[in-house]
């Protein structure tokens, strides 16, 4: 499929900039952008996985050097994450055979992005209002126990200084791996809040740990997509990677200068807008009601 190399490189830079600024993988922005410029959703999802693996590896090295990474927690999330990814890739193959893959990718984006976007906007607007009235920005503090802490199979994670049941850890890892394989997103923007609110992981180790998980799920998704669906476009992925890792470095510098709640509001608006764009795409009548898919010999 002919796409402009410079357009893709520019998109890699722009998305990389935002991912550096907000501390996210950027897959949820990159995949939709590729779909909007005409790359088939299936190829976009599979190739973006490689791109996210690259940017999260570069991030993970950084956090490793600063010892801001909980290896034990990451390993347990990973085991579940790989299971989730394999299940996701399997479902991806089934849906593709049923001609419903593009629809499911679209619907997942609409649901996830509008909901997450709305929550982020709501939360950050409240924080901004509180800051305006001179109150402390964060009211809710991690530390209180929830029902999740009453579950059996408790494990102690030394570096994060938490003592939690293995069940929610496995559940979160599985969910992120599954969503990542189907939607072509690393899931960092979901994983970080989940680790903070459900497992009470301290902010010092949360981003580094999340990056390791993103790295491994996306790297294994790349391999699995290539082996089962033959959809990974290595040339496309390479162009995205180069743009992405460079953009991320500059984005990170801008991000450090901005106020946290402003940053979250911007990110929330962005997430919400992408979700609306997907909803529009599904609801407007397509130019041609018929489409062709190669089943063999292509």
């Amino acid at each position, binding site marked *: 499929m002919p796409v402009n190399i410079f357009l893709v490189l520019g998109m890699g830079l722009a998305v990389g900039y935002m991912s550096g600024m907000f501390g996210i993988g950027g897959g949820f922005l990159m995949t939709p952008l590729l779909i909007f410029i005409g790359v088939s959703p299936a190829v976009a999802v599979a190739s973006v996985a*490689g791109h996210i*693996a690259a940017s999260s590896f570069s991030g993970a090295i950084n956090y490793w050097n600063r010892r801001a990474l909980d290896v034990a927690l990451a390993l347990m999330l990973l085991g579940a994450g790989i299971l989730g990814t394999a299940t996701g890739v399997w479902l991806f193959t089934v849906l593709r055979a049923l001609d419903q893959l593009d629809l499911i990718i679209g619907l997942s984006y609409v649901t996830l992005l509008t909901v997450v976007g709305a929550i982020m906007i709501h939360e950050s607007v409240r924080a901004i209002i509180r800051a305006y009235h001179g109150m402390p920005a964060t009211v809710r503090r991690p530390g209180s126990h929830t029902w999740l802490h009453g579950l059996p199979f408790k494990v102690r994670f030394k570096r994060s200084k938490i003592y939690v049941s293995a069940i929610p850890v496995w559940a979160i890892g599985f969910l992120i791996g599954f969503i990542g394989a189907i939607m072509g997103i690393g899931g960092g923007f979901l994983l970080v809040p989940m680790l903070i609110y459900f497992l009470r992981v301290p902010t010092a180790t949360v981003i580094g740990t999340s990056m390791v998980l993103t790295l491994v799920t996306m790297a294994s998704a790349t391999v699995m997509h*290539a082996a089962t669906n033959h959809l990974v476009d290595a040339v496309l992925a390479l162009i995205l990677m180069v743009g992405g890792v460079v953009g991320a470095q500059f984005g990170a510098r801008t991000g450090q200068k901005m106020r946290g709640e402003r940053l979250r509001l911007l990110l929330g608006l962005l997430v919400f807008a992408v979700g609306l764009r997907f909803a529009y795409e599904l609801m407007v009548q397509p130019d041609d009601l018929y489409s062709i898919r190669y089943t063999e010999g292509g």
Partner: protein
Amino acid sequence: MRRIVFVLSMLTIACGGGPADAERLVVSLSNPRVAITSNFVGDKLVLFGTVEPDAGKTGPPPAYDLVVTVVGPRQTLRTRRKQRVLGIWVNVDSREFVRVPSYLAILSNRPVAQIASPDILRRLQIGLDNFLLPQRIGPDIADTVRDDPFRHAFVQLQSQHGLYRQNADAVTFLTPAVFRAAISLPADVPVGNYAVDVKLFVGGGLVGRTNASLAVTKTGFEQYVAEAARDNGLLYGFATMLMALFTGWLASVVFKRD
């Protein structure tokens, strides 16, 4: 781009098991091997040919009509139809076209309907409407009526991509017995072997037939990547992953700030 390279060794001479008073057709393709490189934007080939009347015949040659059918490698494709369900557009119905040409061109010197009767055109599969496009319908595989909505949509979509075409002025007679036919290949032309079938008509009847072939191949890096992705999926996946890790590592080294 128009490449006219005569490859006389490719001359294909055939008399065909057709009518008794068969005319001899001699054709040659300007470029029997098309190589797709990274900057390939489509190609135009020329098929040259002459009609040699039967040795016993005398007098001026009759008015010839010529139909060239180019058939690309066979593929199985699925055509899907969208419909609005609860406000969103969903693929609700699909039909599989089994082993149909990935490229199909029907080239002639005038509209095929004027060349021969509908009966003969159907029997010889001349024209997009008459070419057999078998669909899987339940357990059976059969072609449908030409105004079947799926068949119509399929031909239209393929035509939009330049893969199916019917052109009534692609064949020109330079002299009453010497002709040339222009074959256009789009940028995303499928790779494989193409069969070129040349049919000669006089007064609505088939008097001669011959064929030639051409090959479309990919060359260079694209070919290598495409083949690797198809044949060694797992290896290709690992290579892509290692490439990702390397890029990530390189970035963290290059942009290291202390």
